């Protein structure tokens, strides 16, 4: 077995945490919304699906501190660890995207579960073909995964203080940007730009961002110590 594959099995030693827990949370949200929608006369649109992306973001943050020391302690190289970890994320992403797309399809053919609940198939977001929906879910998933992984990698590579400075810096840049956008009245132009594209086209824009983060994570993990 390839040694990166061994890192995947290290992550999946407890499959409940990575493969089942996210869906326990998503399905709890789904069931609650389903019951509520049964009492409503009008259709119910909910963003409960967002929970899966929050979960993967948190997973990206927690995976490294949990498993990196053991992987290195047992003689894995940093490259093997990184490759195995990213592949684990990708597997989770593809698995989740397939489930979301299938359930979205089921939602449509079942007439919104018979109660008017729109949970897995949302207007605008899931307007494209099934393949486009699948790719969109995978790309969003990986984007949030790498966001989490980047935070973990900065913490590993530079320590707590540097992570705080980075996050504060990001907050400051965001605040300044939104201030200038408001100042110069650019918001409408920005919304207009977004509105010109479909959700699928927009999701393609996460690809370069994810790749930059992936590269950054690799560089940081390569110089991390236990």
């Amino acid at each position, binding site marked *: 077995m390839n040694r990166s594959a061994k890192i995947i099995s290290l992550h999946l030693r407890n499959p409940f945490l990575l493969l089942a827990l996210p869906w326990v949370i998503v399905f709890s949200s789904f069931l609650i919304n389903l019951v509520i929608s049964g009492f409503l006369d009008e259709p119910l649109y909910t963003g409960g699906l967002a929970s899966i992306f929050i979960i993967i973001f948190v997973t990206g943050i927690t995976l490294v501190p949990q498993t990196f020391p053991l992987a290195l302690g047992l003689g894995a190289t940093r490259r*093997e660890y990184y490759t195995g970890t990213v592949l684990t994320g990708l597997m989770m992403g593809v698995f989740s995207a397939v489930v979301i797309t299938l359930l979205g399809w089921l939602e449509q053919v079942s007439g919104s579960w018979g109660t008017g609940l729109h949970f897995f198939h949302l207007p605008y977001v899931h307007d494209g073909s099934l393949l486009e929906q699948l790719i969109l879910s995978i790309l969003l998933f990986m984007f949030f995964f790498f966001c989490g992984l980047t935070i973990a990698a900065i913490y590993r590579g530079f320590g707590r203080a540097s992570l705080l400075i980075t996050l504060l810096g990001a907050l400051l840049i965001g605040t300044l940007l939104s201030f200038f956008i408001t100042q110069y009245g650019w918001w409408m132009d920005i919304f207009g730009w977004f509105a010109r594209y479909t959700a699928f086209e927009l999701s393609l824009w996460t690809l370069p961002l994810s790749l930059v983060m992936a590269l950054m994570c690799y560089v940081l993990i390569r110089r991390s110590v236990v």
Partner: protein
Amino acid sequence: MTTIVEVKGLTKQYKDVTAVNNVSFTLEEHKIYGLLGRNGAGKTTVMHMLTAQAFATSGDIRVFGEHPFENSRVLSQICFVKESQRYPDVFRVCDALAVAASMYPQWDAAFANDLLDRFALPPKRNIKKLSRGMLSAVGIIIGLASRAPLTIFDEPYLGLDAVAREMFYELLLEDYAAHPRTIVLSTHLIDEVSRMLEHVLVIDKGQLIINEDTDTLRSYAYTLAGPAAKVEPFLEGRQVTRREPLGSFMTASVIGELSRADREKAQAEGLELLPVSLQQLIVQLTHNQGSSKEAGIR
């Protein structure tokens, strides 16, 4: 003898501390080494750099002829069991062993199961819920069952009682005899392990002060006991590390080899000559670093 580890001028500099200072040594195949020294002397840092878990500030490291950094050919042949090893929160004992089994080509699963029984470890117990001694046993099992050509134990028995420690030493020697490999034991329970060690490396304040075969080292020092009036003249001109007067009686530790004439003279004077244990010798040397340098032991 094949050299499997070669370290030259290894230095690790933190902001204002030199944890390891210009250390050079070699390790040979199929030998048991003791890496000894006080807490904070730099032992763990050396082992971390040897396994590429930490980066050296300067110096060169060759393990099995290659640099260990990002080198799975080398790293899959080293098992480094450390006291501070962390495991994922959800891991049970059996999970840790399964992952270790997948990482080491020479892993012996039957041996690992046998060791689980001997150390009475519950395989389904969460590692977080183990006692300190049981946690140490997990590391010991991984180290022994890995059968890695270079196996390093860093303080492997914190919290283990004397019976379990004795069992560890016996198992180690037994398995080493059946499957020879290079073993490095880092510890401060020197007396307990001294009979196993073939070669001793002592690190003090980041510097390698002793690099010697255990047998040679034993003849480096002796203890002299007798009436103070007769002991004192004998000590003149010798490297004395410890003087313990007790009334008119005196015990003194001396470094340096004893000639036949010295031996006869001591006997004629009615002085008692005693060997110094490895632990005592090292305590004396690291307690007072200056004297060890003068003694020229390197």
